[in-house]
């Protein structure tokens, strides 16, 4: 990326983060959704107290994050579209891929903040075994899965932004495509929480997540100019 491209990337990221910190629309809705989902899971799975929930924890966590991320992704182009600023953005001599990476980075920041706040709460509610020794592995799963969610989500949010049923279209297209990532992230996270994670079991899942990320980053790189379309 050129010096001008890096400056444009920083400007786009700063603009999205500043706007969000002022309105807190995405962060508040994502955080509330994540906490409420945990409360619902807590009651739904507490019919019998002797049931060990450890092997459901990965699934509960990633279902919460994926639906929470959807709330944020659906709003990631709201300012551009509703305030007519997309025209202003497309008038600028900026590589469209720079817009993609800045939007994706902003979504990563927001999802990361939510995870930072909710993973400890989730651990208190549902995780019965200590996993301090595997904290690095959990961080790796979170980072790689977040990258895939935000790469795919940002690309699809851009495409759906230009449609009339954008609130419906994004989940309908996003959820089937995110299933492979969900399976890998869930099994890796469950193994970490259950303390059954060995290097041999984790590496293939981490490698799969990295491959998934690479595929959608390349797809976005190649198609974003078309995806963002005409203003």
């Amino acid at each position, binding site marked *: 990326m050129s010096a001008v491209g890096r400056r*444009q990337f920083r400007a786009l990221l*700063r603009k999205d983060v500043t706007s969000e910190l002022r309105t807190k629309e995405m962060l508040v809705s994502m955080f509330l959704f994540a906490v409420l989902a945990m409360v619902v899971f807590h009651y739904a799975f507490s019919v019998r107290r002797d049931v060990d929930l450890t092997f459901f924890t990965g699934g509960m966590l990633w279902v919460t994050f994926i639906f929470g991320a959807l709330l944020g992704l659906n709003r990631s182009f709201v300012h551009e579209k509703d305030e007519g600023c997309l025209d202003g953005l497309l*008038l*600028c*001599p900026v590589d469209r891929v720079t817009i993609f990476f800045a939007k994706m980075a902003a979504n990563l920041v927001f999802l990361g903040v939510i995870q930072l706040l909710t993973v400890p709460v989730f651990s208190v509610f549902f995780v019965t075994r200590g996993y301090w020794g595997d904290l690095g592995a959990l961080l790796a799963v979170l980072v790689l899965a977040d990258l895939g969610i935000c790469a795919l989500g940002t690309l699809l949010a851009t495409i759906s932004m230009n449609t009339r049923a954008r609130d419906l279209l994004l989940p309908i297209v996003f959820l089937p495509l995110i299933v492979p990532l969900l399976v890998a992230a869930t099994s890796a996270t469950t193994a970490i929480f259950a303390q059954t994670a060995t290097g041999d079991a984790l590496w293939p899942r981490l490698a799969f997540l990295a491959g998934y990320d690479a595929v959608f980053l390349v797809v976005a790189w190649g198609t974003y100019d078309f995806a963002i379309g*005409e203003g």
Partner: protein
Amino acid sequence: MDAGPAQDSAAAPEIVVEGLGKVFGRRDAVRDVSFTVERGGFLALFGPNGAGKTTVLRIVATLLAPSSGTVRVAGHDVSDDPDPVRRLVGLISHSPLLYRDLTAYENLRFYADMYGLDDREQRIAELLDRVELTHRRYDLVRTFSKGMLQRLAIARALLHRPRVLLLDEPHSGLDPHAVGILDSLLAEIRAEHTFVMVTHHLGKGLELASQVAIMDGGRLVFHQAAAVDERHFAAVYREHVREGV
């Protein structure tokens, strides 16, 4: 940042539109439109709603791709070479293209960074002063009146020192005071830029125009490369457009 304009001579055509067509689905929004605007010229483009005026303007601004024909700005083709065109063109529309949750200064800083301006702070201060908004530079744009928004939109459009200004109904929704400020700003910068203005307002368009055109049904039905008086033009407009004025 140098856009590398292909033609710098004052007499050279700044905007050349040839056989332009735009199709949305099955609808021909623009059909075989051709015109030229000389450097420093001012084209006022009139026509009823849905005539295709805004579509032509958006194609010149690189916001839409033409379906047929060519558009060149300072020698650069808008389809094949859009980035130099984007550096040369500024757009003022009825929508201010500003982020409401950022301050006036933050909005201008964002656009200055997007255009890669080297003298960002100096240019922002100069333009805020010019549109008389220095005292509101750290206020959120969502607190601005429509007139203040439009003044800030003018500052945004002029930030990267464009040679061509595209105006899409710039007076729309403004109160008389804001119209006065906008008109005096346009008169002030009239000599420095080439303009294309889309408007329904005959008086405003004809006041500044060096050439006039009328579009109807996607076609250019009248084009005169000279200024005309309002009374004569109203008759011409009625003759060419079924809706009348």
